[in-house]
């Protein structure tokens, strides 16, 4: 299956590991991620605070390019996904908006090819193939699937999963042989940019998620959004210091776990680049060779 891959701004910067791991596993699972040519910023969190029309027009241009190619967009980042889905929904539900958007981006866009999250793409088309490709099942790994706020909300158009109790990442965790833990904070807010701007509020939110994951008995957190990853991984050390006891909860992208289970080297998946050491847990569990031989990069 061929998709127009829309990396967005974060997949080449803060979310590099997501990009690396997705690109590494996709070909093995029969998915062709063809990078959308001449893509532009989706506007994410800033555009819709400024101008509603602009916030629809920015993603619409990307979607229109995809439509030109006859491809559905596959979107890794949850924020990009949310904006693109919102645009698709707006165009589909109002002829007036449709006309306006087309005139703004100066090209036709009919929302003919449904926008998909990368997570959805893997769930829909590669779960069977994955079973054949698994060489190192992650048996005995307890993982907390963390979805954040945008993956399955709002229900109007993010119709891929249950908004209160999503399951897609849990399914992947099970598929790679690990054990998803049941916990209540799967969709709790990670604070997005607020931990930076308002550290008091923001860090409380991150802290709550980490604490609940710990209580649930998880050994790691698995997520599908570069922003969530950034907050949970990078802020973890400081929060641990503050409470006087480290959390030690490595955070993975689901794509990374899939890669490990398929026997790919962790460096190829960017696992060596995390803030919280993510290699040790994998080597302790003997999914990868011992830490010494693999730790070249170390925490960035």
């Amino acid at each position, binding site marked *: 299956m061929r998709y127009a891959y829309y990396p967005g701004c974060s997949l080449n910067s803060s979310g590099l590991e997501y990009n690396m791991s997705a690109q590494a596993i996709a070909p093995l699972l029969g998915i062709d991620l063809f990078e959308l040519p001449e893509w532009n910023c989706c506007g994410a969190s800033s555009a819709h605070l400024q101008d509603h029309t602009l916030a629809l027009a920015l993603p619409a241009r990307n979607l229109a390019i995809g439509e030109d190619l006859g491809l559905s967009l596959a979107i890794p980042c949850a924020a990009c996904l949310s904006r693109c889905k919102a645009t698709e929904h707006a165009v589909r539900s109002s002829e007036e908006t449709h006309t306006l958007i087309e005139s703004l981006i100066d090209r036709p866009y009919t929302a003919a090819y449904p926008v998909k999250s990368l997570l959805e793409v893997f769930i829909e088309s590669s779960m069977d193939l994955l079973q054949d490709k698994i060489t190192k099942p992650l048996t005995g790994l307890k993982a907390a699937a963390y979805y954040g706020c945008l993956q399955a909300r709002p229900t109007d158009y993010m119709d891929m999963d*249950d908004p*209160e*109790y999503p399951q897609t990442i849990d399914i992947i965790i099970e598929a790679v042989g690990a054990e998803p833990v049941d*916990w*209540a*904070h799967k969709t709790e807010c990670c604070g997005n940019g607020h931990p930076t701007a308002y550290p008091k509020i923001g860090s409380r939110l991150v802290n709550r998620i980490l604490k*609940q994951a710990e*209580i649930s008995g998880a050994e790691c957190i698995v997520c599908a959004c570069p922003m969530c990853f950034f907050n949970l991984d990078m802020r973890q050390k400081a929060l641990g210091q503050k409470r006087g006891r480290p959390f030690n909860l490595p955070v993975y992208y689901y794509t990374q776990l899939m890669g490990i289970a398929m026997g790919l080297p962790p460096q190829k998946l960017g696992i060596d680049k995390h803030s919280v050491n993510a290699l040790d847990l994998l080597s302790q569990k003997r999914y990868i060779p011992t830490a010494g031989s693999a730790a070249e990069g170390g925490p960035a």
Partner: protein
Amino acid sequence: MKKVGVFVCHCGTNIAQTVNCEQLAEAAKTLPGVAYSTEYKYMCSDPGQTMIKKAIEEHNLDRVVVAACSPRMHEATFRKCVNGAGLNPYLLEIANIREQCSWVHSDKTKATAKAEDLIRMAVAKALKNEKLTPSVIPIHKRALVIGGGIAGIQAALDIADTGYQVDLVEREPSIGGKMAQIDKTFPTMDCSACILTPKMVDAAQHPNITIIAYSEVEKVEGYVGNFDVTIRRKATCVDPVKCTGCGLCSQKCPSKTDSEFECNMSQRPAIYSPFPQAIPNKPVIDQEACRYFKTGKCKICQKICASDAVNFEDQDELVTIRYGAIVVATGYSLYDYNQYGEYGYGQYPDVISGLDFERLVNASGPTMGKIKRPSDGQEPKTVVFIKCVGSRDANRGHDYCSRACCMYTAKHATMVRDKIKDSQAVVFYMDIRTPGKNYEEFYLRAVEEYGVTYVRGRVSRIYMESGNLIVQGEDTILGTQILVVADMVVLATAMEAQPDAAEFARKIGITFDQNNFFNEAHPKLRPVETFSAGIYLAGACQGPKDIPDSVAQAGAAAAKVVALLSKDEMATEPIVAEVNTNHCSGCGFCVPVCPYKAISLKTLTERVHGSVAWGPAGKEITRQVAEVNKGLCQGCGACTVNCRSGALDLLGFTNEQILAEVDSL
């Protein structure tokens, strides 16, 4: 030759000041068919009416047009008047020259010209008017009440007290409904069973009431005064005549299953009465739970029964009974809170519904009235109540307010504070709605005397942490997030229509709204009637209601039933649709547009002249034609417009009559 008399009323100066009545009466004389015309100061007065009667006799008039005020005002008066002179009342027409002419115009010439036209139209129509006679339908003096909750019991008692026979059908083994499960009632806090069970006994002992329990309505045919209702009596496997109700069978029964009455918090035997005060107090065998029905072995109850009442061969039985009127009191069900992901999808045993709580505090409930939480039987110290679960929530539940939850939550919180020492009761609410007598005072007592904490805001999540429930919500007054560590959470779940309400409504021919509650005929003026004559509503099947409202509505429905049954027969308005079967092609387009299900297709058999095309000669053919049930038809005429050939016509407003009005100008 038809002879029309035209009578122009001045209505004092109301008409005469802007319309020249003398000129009108003169002009009317020239209209085709008019044999007599006159004017008078007050046509509706006694002398005026006498004048009309006299003129009918003297001039042999066979049609009358009165040009006066709106027909909505005095049509009935003048119909009676012409009837007094021996004319059929439907040969009268009114020209509305007051409300729709003299009062709304000031130019006398133009107003008079218009009034002339209005009279011309009325005369044209009157010439096409035919005698109409109300048809008379007999009223069968027996009522059916469907649903044996408090509304149904009350309706049955009220009807029975006036001397009419009532059958009370209940699908559970006992009457009593939801009220039997409730512990105490707001705002008086008297015990629910103490006020309900005497009524149940009254119903059982009433000479005019027959309780048909463990039975369901299968089919309703017929119309007002003459409903033929088929009732399925489900097999009880216990002969109610032989059974003494000793209860020994239930004690010895080895098969156990969850008790619906106790909200699945305790077990009951397969041969059971739902609760000790059940009426009828004869057990039934739940065949799905019974060991004999599952394995073919057991029969302990049969062996043990001294009066030989157990009969495993018992079968469902269908009986058809005729009723004059029906009261629908099928009640409500509760929203399934397991749909709320943020409240744990039902995975936390200590998150329970309000009805579960009623059983937990009830002295005869699974915990003998001690509030113990389901997970470990511990007494909860902190109990959180969440209101509007499924109500006022368009996303997951219903838009509407369930009306009773504010009050019963206040009641529950009070009981927690009352029964458990050093306990804490926290109520999360959106608004407090206490629009009933002594309701606000009751709520204030909960806050002020019992110290219940009310937090204005929604709960966003409930989760477990070290064996405790953490309730995470927002206090919108303080503008802050709060966490409450709770031992138990009680959800005030929405009242919703019975799951089979829509199917039931279609079965008996009444309508329902977008929430599947049954529609009343008018939200303000006909609150207990349905669109189907002779079928009335009582209780929460029409919309969420508390006990006082249900009882009041039941009384109102009973009064309507009694008013209907008090007559031997009923005259129906003769303005009904009529089928010309010669013209009807049996296409059935009239059937779906009738809101009263008054039209059905019947089959005619006819001999054809000659032969069927390419077929044998002299064959009989069958064809379908529409048939209007005059008892059900309300005369709206929607069917006539969907009838392309005009085979259906509306008496009193026929195609010819309306065309005559159009053509007259």
